[in-house]
């Protein structure tokens, strides 16, 4: 008996004993393996990286001396700099990809019956993610961290009132400086554990009904969106899904480490995307008072002076008299965070119809687009003008054009659907015209109406220009969003035929997969394998403290190779023809491009 057959028999034994071929997870058709259906895997991979690096960082974190302890991890512990900075970048990636994952499922209405609970748990997971991120960057003890503690105190007392707010703050930060970082560390880990728990619940709820069926199979109907598990063209979870997850994980980690490698090369990197801590608290510095980018939107909303309550407001409803205390932050919090969040949590109950097509539920599509635009605009605004107070006229100049564009655009598109065959070009032209009109009306009209000519020309010209540009940008984003919505028409006409000829063809192709393994795949696979083997000594012998960017690059190349090999292995189990070699090669081209970026980071 040769070595090959020994390995094979051991492997078969493991597969059989672990019952891997019949893992009771939802199965999806062979055609579902693409980025659109796997955005959640990016979030999950980033979270996995965070969990691994976070647990390792616990070994060295020193709550009694947070800043110097952090600098020690960076400057003295082998691979400490890599772990700490990649922990931060993975958090950035997780938050960004979670937003993308959420809005994809919002616009495709994946929250509809029977997946309401899956959606709600998902939104809550996002909230806990941001909470964990807040507690995480506080731990560093640099100037951003100490600002965050102070701003956090202001927000909590401003929202919950002095009495309850200060009690909550004592719970969170303790009552003495020595206690603060120990508590924040504990709550960071607790919050991460809660995140892991919610993530497991989110996955379990996903398993309850699986992903929504493709529009062309379900005709955009929520009631038809469950994939029949008796269909013949379903891929086995193991190994197909498993290998695809490995591929997503490898590529996600590879991108993360390649970008980190570049970022570590540049000393003068902008503080918002710097992978390393800022200067310590209490030292005079030019460092701008930024929160991390994912809180910039709220930072800007908090600058909206017209939203601050200067004097207590007394509301009397018959016998009930309520007093809203003076607070600069309460209304911004409600408008900027609480209401959008409340909307996102309750949208499965606000939008209960069977229709999943974005243009057949125009109100929610418009609201979703406006939330996206608002997040982008306010984030950029916060980055450009940190801490500058914003008056009503400027806020309107920025907020109105995208609102008008989006609302009217979605309205017109949804009205025109079904009556006329609308081409994408028609839509774009129509919306562009609309946009120009609304933009001119809103930005110039409102700016000039509320401000005098003098102030526009003399004092506020730069600011007004900035506001107008941001308004235009928001309108552009809104336009881009709605013009990329799927057309109503062709896709709603097709009917699924799970027993038809197409399915038989799929099954035949998968069974004859061997013939579909081209020679280039073998060569590329050998190339990846060589890269992994060559990078291992590089990873071990490059000095991890002085040349972290090179180590990150080497690790990136290893992870990307892992991703590439996993994708090949996945293709041996799923050979739906892509049609041509270019499309077959696409994931590998992407991997090779990111590898080239990583190689830049390898430079001494």
């Amino acid at each position: 008996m040769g070595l090959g057959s020994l390995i094979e028999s051991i492997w078969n034994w493991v597969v059989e004993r672990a019952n891997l071929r019949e893992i009771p997870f939802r199965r999806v058709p062979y055609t579902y393996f693409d980025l659109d259906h796997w955005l959640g895997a990016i979030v999950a991979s980033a979270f996995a990286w965070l969990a691994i690096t976070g647990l390792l960082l616990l070994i060295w974190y020193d709550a009694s001396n947070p800043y110097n302890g952090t600098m020690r991890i960076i400057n003295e512990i082998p691979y400490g700099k890599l772990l700490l900075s990649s922990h931060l970048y993975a958090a950035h990636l997780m938050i960004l990809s979670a937003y993308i994952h959420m809005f994809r499922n919002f616009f495709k209405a994946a929250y509809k019956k029977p997946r309401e609970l899956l959606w709600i748990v998902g939104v809550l997971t996002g909230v806990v993610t941001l909470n964990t991120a807040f507690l995480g960057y506080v731990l560093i003890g640099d100037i951003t961290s100490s600002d965050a503690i102070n701003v956090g105190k202001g927000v909590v007392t401003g929202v919950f009132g002095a009495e309850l707010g200060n009690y909550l703050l004592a719970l969170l930060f303790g009552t003495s400086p020595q206690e603060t970082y120990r508590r924040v560390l504990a709550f960071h880990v607790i919050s991460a554990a809660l995140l892991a728990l919610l993530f497991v619940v989110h996955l379990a709820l996903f398993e309850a009904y699986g992903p929504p069926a493709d529009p062309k199979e379900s005709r955009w109907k929520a009631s038809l969106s469950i994939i029949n598990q008796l269909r013949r063209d379903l891929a086995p979870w193991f190994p197909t899904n498993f290998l695809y997850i490995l591929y997503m994980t490898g590529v996600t980690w590879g991108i993360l480490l390649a970008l980190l490698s570049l970022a570590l090369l540049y000393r003068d990197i902008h503080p918002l995307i710097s992978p390393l801590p800022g200067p310590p608290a209490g030292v005079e510095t030019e460092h701008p008072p930024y929160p991390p980018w994912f809180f910039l939107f709220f930072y800007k909303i908090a600058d909206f002076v017209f939203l601050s309550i200067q004097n207590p407001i007394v509301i009397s409803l018959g016998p009930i008299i309520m007093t809203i205390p003076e607070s600069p932050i309460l209304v911004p919090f409600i408008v900027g965070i609480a209401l959008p969040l409340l909307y996102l949590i309750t949208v499965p109950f606000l939008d209960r119809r069977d229709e999943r097509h974005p243009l057949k539920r125009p109100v929610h599509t418009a609201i979703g687009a406006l939330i996206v635009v608002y997040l982008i605009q306010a984030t950029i605004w916060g980055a450009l003008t940190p801490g500058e107070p914003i008056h009503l006229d400027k806020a309107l100049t920025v907020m109105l054009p995208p609102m008008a564009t989006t609302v009217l655009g979605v309205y017109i598109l949804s009205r025109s659907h079904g009556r006329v065959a609308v081409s994408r070009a028609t839509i774009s032209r129509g919306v562009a015209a609309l946009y120009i009109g609304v933009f001119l009306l809103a930005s110039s009209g409102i700016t000039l109406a509320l401000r005098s000519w003098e102030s526009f020309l003399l004092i506020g010209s730069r600011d007004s220009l900035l506001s107008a540009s941001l308004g235009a940008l928001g309108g552009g984003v809104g336009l881009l969003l709605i013009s990329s919505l799927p057309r109503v028409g062709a896709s709603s006409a097709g009917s699924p035929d799970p027993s038809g000829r197409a399915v038989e063809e799929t099954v035949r192709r998968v069974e004859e997969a061997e013939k579909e393994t081209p020679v280039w795949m073998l060569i590329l696979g050998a190339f990846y394998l060589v890269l992994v083997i060559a990078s291992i000594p590089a990873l071990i012998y490059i000095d991890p403290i002085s040349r972290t960017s090179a180590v990150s690059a080497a690790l990136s190349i290893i992870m990307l190779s892992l991703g590439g090999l996993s994708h090949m292995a996945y293709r041996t189990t799923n050979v739906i023809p892509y049609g041509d070699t270019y499309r077959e090669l696409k994931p590998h081209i992407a991997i090779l491009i990111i590898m080239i970026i990583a190689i830049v980071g390898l430079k001494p």
Partner: protein
Amino acid sequence: MVWLTRRDLIRYMAAAGIAGAIGSLIVPTIRYITPPALSGSANYPRSLLVFSNGDPVKTSELPVNKLYFFYYPLIDTQAVLINLGDESGKPLEVKSVELPTVMFPLKDFSLATGGTPRPIEGPPNASKYVFPGGVGPYRSIVAYSFICQHLGCIYPQLRFHKPGEPTSLRTNPPEIGEKGGVFHCRCHGTVYDPYRGAAVLLDPSIRPLPNIVLEWDSSTDHLYAVGVVGPTIFGKICNLCGDTIKDKVTVYTAEELAKML
């Protein structure tokens, strides 16, 4: 018949690549979690022994056969200082002797109680070191790492049984414990001879206690701890792997030690 299909080759390559990628993380992870102190300091500190009131220890102030405790060379490695003598209280000269770091138990009486020295032997490949003997006017003062080399028991499990002191000390064979003058560990019964470099009298330990090298300044009568010879201190990768003691080290009596803990 194809012995290896393209599909299987791809799968084997993927398995190797995935295993290699995961394996590549092992060395960095181990390097990351290894405490840097394990590389150790270069030199032993030269530490003046002082009493808990801050006064330097003078050999004339050390009563015979009384244990003093101190931490050397690291802040968590307990050691004892003792002015050895016979049962009448007369200091005894402790001679230099060569010891192997791994040794067979001697199974004879402590030198303090009239044992006839037997040849000290260890396995042929055991490295040897020279126990420098006692210091002070009578060459009677010695210091040892006081962590049993068997399984790490410390005072009060490891204690000094004075020569001639009536005792219920049970050793196997019993006569070795009877006359005293030994370090005895109550955990598993190891007996060391403090008069012969803490050589092993009775197993289960196979290593003598490491010796803290002392230096006596005859002009001031002060004592300094200057190094460690013998086997590596129990529980340490190396004798200097950790936080080392500075240039002063406090000695405590058993009572002071109890109050401190």
